[in-house]
Each structure stands twice: as structure tokens, then as C-alpha cells.
């Protein structure tokens, strides 16, 4: 299996990787922020603009039919990618953030009342904290937080204690962007359901790295961003169970989300269009389709296996650097190496690595409560994708030794 994963061949598909930064070959270790795009995606977007460009769902002319077909085809590809029951359960959104906001606004305003409770976890990205906080402020509901241990693993027995008849929603990330922890989402969803609550899973950091099977998972909502699965920015998918989506009011009003409009009354369109007001990100949708095809062709399982080896190699290599502390050491982890170094601020590490061509993320990773928990102002995060190599991990390690020299 190892031999079959030809990473050098795969790197040929990503033009951005072939460049020097400050005179050194680019080592891109920031895929958790945004992943690079293969030619397949770049070409699909270009082809749309060059050959098929038209608005969708409203023209009888050839171009409109072509663009409509290409855009809608992505819904079918996403259904397959996530093993959803029906493509009507897949809503195009701008990204994970909008997916969560759609649920907290539309479902939340209708169903959450004063005294109700929303459960999130200690390792959420701000995008899975703030929308629920806003909903709680508006409705008088209470936000409860599942704590974690020092490795960055959720305390499931504490979660169990938080659940009660007032719990309406459990919103938890599948994979933590700041720590890399893979959460036991199936168990989390099951426990939420047992308590009579719904479950939303933030899949932004999971979809690029592991097989997501929505029918097996049984989450009520699941959302991810196109740009983290090697597609363009500004497009993503929100999955929702049909019965729930049907009962929810529209998120935004406008064109494309209606059946009949008069000044007295508007009848809304059926799923999924009820939640898709206005001309969408057509090029983005088409690019996302190409990205899902690309990942599927490589095989998400083989990607997982390869990245797992890469992560294990990186974990061991970083652990050997004196004064370096990994933040997030869960037993189940994916593609994130977050760390701090004694006496050296992450921003200085980031700048010094950049001068060696190595791109990492530094800061709080939109997860300030996680930083507070580990009592650090920020971390340096190297995040992996299937186009990264063992040699790039070595380059990171060498780069960090140079950083230490500067501050010695």
C-alpha cells in the first residue's frame, strides 16, 4: 500500500507546490487553514468561465443548461462522498461557518427557548462557539461546554453528565483544528439522540482526511468547507436530515428559493433550494465537484493511511527537539502538529520558518479557549495533507533547529 501512494506523482498535480520561497523550495504545512488546489480543480473553474459560463436554474439556453448540470452534479458527488441518503439533504453554503450559522439561525430560532441548553466542546473553533452564543443570548438558552483532558481528549463521562431533557443541540467538531484530536463523533451523536437532542458535527478538518459516512454517523447536521478539501474558497456543504430541513424556515429570502411570489404571500421552494437564495458560487460549486472527484480517485482511505504515517513520523521527530512541547497529544489524531517552544514566541518561529520556505500557521487558530486551557498565548501549527512528504517533515525539524540557533 505504501508503494502505491506515489506522493511525488501526486505533487505534480499541485502547481503551487513547485516554487521557491525566499530562495528555498516551498514546504507547505498549512493545509488545515486552506488546502492547495490540483490542476483538476483549477481547470474545472477555468473551463466554466471559458466555456460554460451562465447563470443556473433559470435559462433555457445551452450555456445555462450546461452550467446548471455541472453545478448540480457536485451535489450528487457530495452525496456519494459523504454517503448521504439523498442529494436534496445537501445545501450549498459559503463554508463551514455559514453551515453552522444557517442551523443556529434557522433551526435555532424556531426551536430553542429560554431555559434550553446547547452543548459544545472545549476544543471548538470560534465558528462553532459564537453562533451558538448568539443564539443563547437571543433566546435565553444556556451554553454548556464538554471539558477535555491535558492530551486534548473530550471527557465523555462529563459529557454524559451535561446531557439532560433541556439539551436541544450538541454541536461538536469531528477533528480539532488546533489540536488534531479526532473525536468519537458516533458515540457523541448517539448519546445526544438518547437524551432527545440533535447533533451537529463540524467536519471542516475531517472531510479532507478521513472517510465520512453520514448514514452510519447518523448526525442531524454535518458541514464542511470546500477549500479545505482541495476545492476553492467560498463554497461548502451543509448536510441536514430531510425532515429537519423541511421543518426549518428559510435562512435567507430571495431568488431561487421560491415557488410562487405575490405581494401577499410567498411559497418556498422544495429542498435543497429553500436554503439557497440568490445566485450562488457557481464556479466554486463546480470546482468543489472536481475536488471531490480528485480525492475520491486517490481514495480517501489510502489518504488516511499515508497521512497517519506522516503524522506519526512528524510527532516522533518533533518530540526529539529539546524544549519543544506538543499541544494536543490525543490517542486519535489527524494531520495536525501544534506545538510551543520554550522561550520562543510562535510568531517568531513562524517568521523564521517562512524565511526558510516553510509555511506554518501561528496564533490562536480561531480557538482562543483552547489556548487558555493549555495556558499558552498561541501555538505554531504544522498541518499535513497527502501531498506532504517525509522529507518536508525533516525540513521542518531542520528549520526549527535553526530557529533555536537564532534565539540561543
Amino acid at each position, binding site marked *: 500500500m505504501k508503494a502505491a501512494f506515489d506522493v511525488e506523482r501526486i505533487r505534480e498535480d499541485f502547481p503551487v507546490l513547485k516554487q521557491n520561497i525566499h530562495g528555498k523550495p516551498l514546504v507547505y504545512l498549512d493545509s488545515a487553514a486552506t488546502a492547495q488546489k490540483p490542476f483538476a480543480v483549477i481547470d474545472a473553474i477555468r473551463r466554466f468561465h471559458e466555456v460554460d459560463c451562465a447563470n443556473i436554474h433559470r435559462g433555457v439556453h445551452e450555456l445555462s443548461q450546461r452550467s446548471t448540470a455541472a453545478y448540480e452534479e457536485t451535489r450528487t458527488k457530495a452525496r456519494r462522498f459523504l454517503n448521504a441518503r439523498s442529494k436534496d439533504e445537501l445545501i450549498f453554503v459559503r463554508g463551514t461557518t455559514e453551515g453552522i450559522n444557517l442551523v443556529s439561525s434557522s433551526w435555532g430560532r424556531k426551536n430553542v427557548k429560554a431555559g434550553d441548553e446547547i452543548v459544545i466542546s472545549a476544543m471548538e473553533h470560534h465558528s462553532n462557539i459564537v453562533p451558538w452564543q448568539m443564539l443563547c443570548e437571543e433566546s435565553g438558552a444556556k451554553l454548556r461546554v464538554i471539558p477535555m483532558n491535558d492530551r486534548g481528549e473530550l471527557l465523555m463521562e462529563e459529557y454524559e453528565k451535561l446531557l439532560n431533557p433541556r439539551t436541544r443541540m450538541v454541536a461538536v467538531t469531528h477533528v480539532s483544528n488546533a489540536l488534531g484530536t479526532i473525536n468519537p463523533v458516533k458515540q457523541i451523536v448517539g448519546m445526544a439522540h438518547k437524551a432527545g437532542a440533535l447533533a451537529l458535527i463540524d467536519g471542516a478538518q475531517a472531510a479532507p482526511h478521513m472517510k465520512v459516512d453520514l448514514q452510519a454517523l447518523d448526525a442531524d447536521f454535518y458541514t464542511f468547507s470546500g477549500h479545505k478539501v482541495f476545492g476553492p474558497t467560498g463554497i461548502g456543504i451543509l448536510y441536514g436530515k430531510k425532515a429537519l430541513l423541511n421543518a426549518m424556515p428559510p435562512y435567507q429570502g430571495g431568488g431561487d428559493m421560491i415557488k410562487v411570489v405575490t405581494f401577499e404571500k410567498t411559497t418556498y421552494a422544495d429542498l435543497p433550494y429553500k436554503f439557497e437564495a440568490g445566485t450562488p458560487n457557481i464556479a466554486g460549486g463546480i470546482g468543489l465537484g472536481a475536488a471531490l472527484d480528485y480525492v475520491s480517485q486517490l481514495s480517501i482511505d489510502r489518504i488516511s493511511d499515508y497521512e497517519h504515517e506522516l503524522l506519526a513520523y512528524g510527532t516522533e521527530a518533533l518530540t526529539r527537539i529539546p524544549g519543544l512541547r506538543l499541544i494536543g497529544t490525543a490517542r486519535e489524531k489527524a494531520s495536525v502538529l501544534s506545538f510551543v517552544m520554550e522561550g*520562543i*514566541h*510562535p*510568531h*517568531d518561529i513562524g*517568521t*523564521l520558518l517562512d*524565511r*526558510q520556505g516553510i509555511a506554518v500557521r*501561528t*496564533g*490562536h487558530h480561531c480557538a*482562543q479557549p483552547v*489556548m487558555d486551557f493549555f495556558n499558552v*498565548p*498561541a501555538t505554531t501549527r504544522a498541518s499535513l495533507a497527502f501531498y506532504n512528504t517525509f522529507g518536508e517533515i525533516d525540513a521542518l525539524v531542520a528549520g526549527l533547529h*535553526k530557529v533555536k540557533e*537564532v*534565539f540561543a
Partner: protein
Amino acid sequence: MVHDLYQEIILDHSKRPRNCHSMADATRQADGYNPLCGDKLKLYVKVENDIVVDVSFEGSGCAISTASASLMTESLKGKTREEALKLLEKFHELLTTDSAVSKDLGKLVVFCGVRDYPARVKCATLAWHTLKSALSTELTEPVTTE
């Protein structure tokens, strides 16, 4: 490698920051915060007869922000409030424009490399933003670099 940014004097002040302590008899105090990196800084200023007689700071930050705060405290002592604010202006120009380096800046010229690192300008200006706040108004809320 990056000696244009991390000059010896900057490294020295980041490892051994001067005037890095609280001040019991400060007449003004301000908090600075850089939400981008979580850096926090507390600045103490003692102004007597409109002259900055003492400045100190506490906080944690990157090498650039720590060295900037340290060098700032050294360069302010004995200046009038107006002179201090003028120095701030010149420092800001040093970081954000291509203008000729003013000799009034003294040691602070070591930060001229920062202009080539736009993402780091806020690190270098945090202490100065906080100074402005401490010198201009009676404080109620922490200032931020945003």
C-alpha cells in the same frame, strides 16, 4: 538568515527586556492587546509636570513586541508628552513607509527591517499604541492593535 529583522539589539532586548516590571507610583497605566497573536502588555507611565519621568511594562509577547516595548521605555524617559507622541509618529513612519529614517529615532532604527514584514508591524507597534492610550486619555478599556 533573517538578520535584517532580528538584529542583535532586538534579540538582546527580547531576551533581557529593560524596565520590565510594574510601577507602584505610576500616574498612568494602559493595557494593550494584539488579538492576532494574543500578546498582552501592561504599560506604566509616570508623568510629572508634563514630562515622562519613568516608564515600565509587563507582559508576554514575541521577540519583536518585547524588544519594541523595552527599547521604547528606554527612549521615552525625560521626554515631554508632546515629544513622546512625536516619536511615536516617527516610529510608525519608520515601520510603514519608505521615508528616510529620522535620526531622532536613535536606537529605534533597528526596527526598520520590520517594514519588509507587514504581518509583523503590529507586533512592533503594540507598546506604542498602548503608550498613546496611556498618554492621551483617562483609561477605561484596554486598547487593541485592531
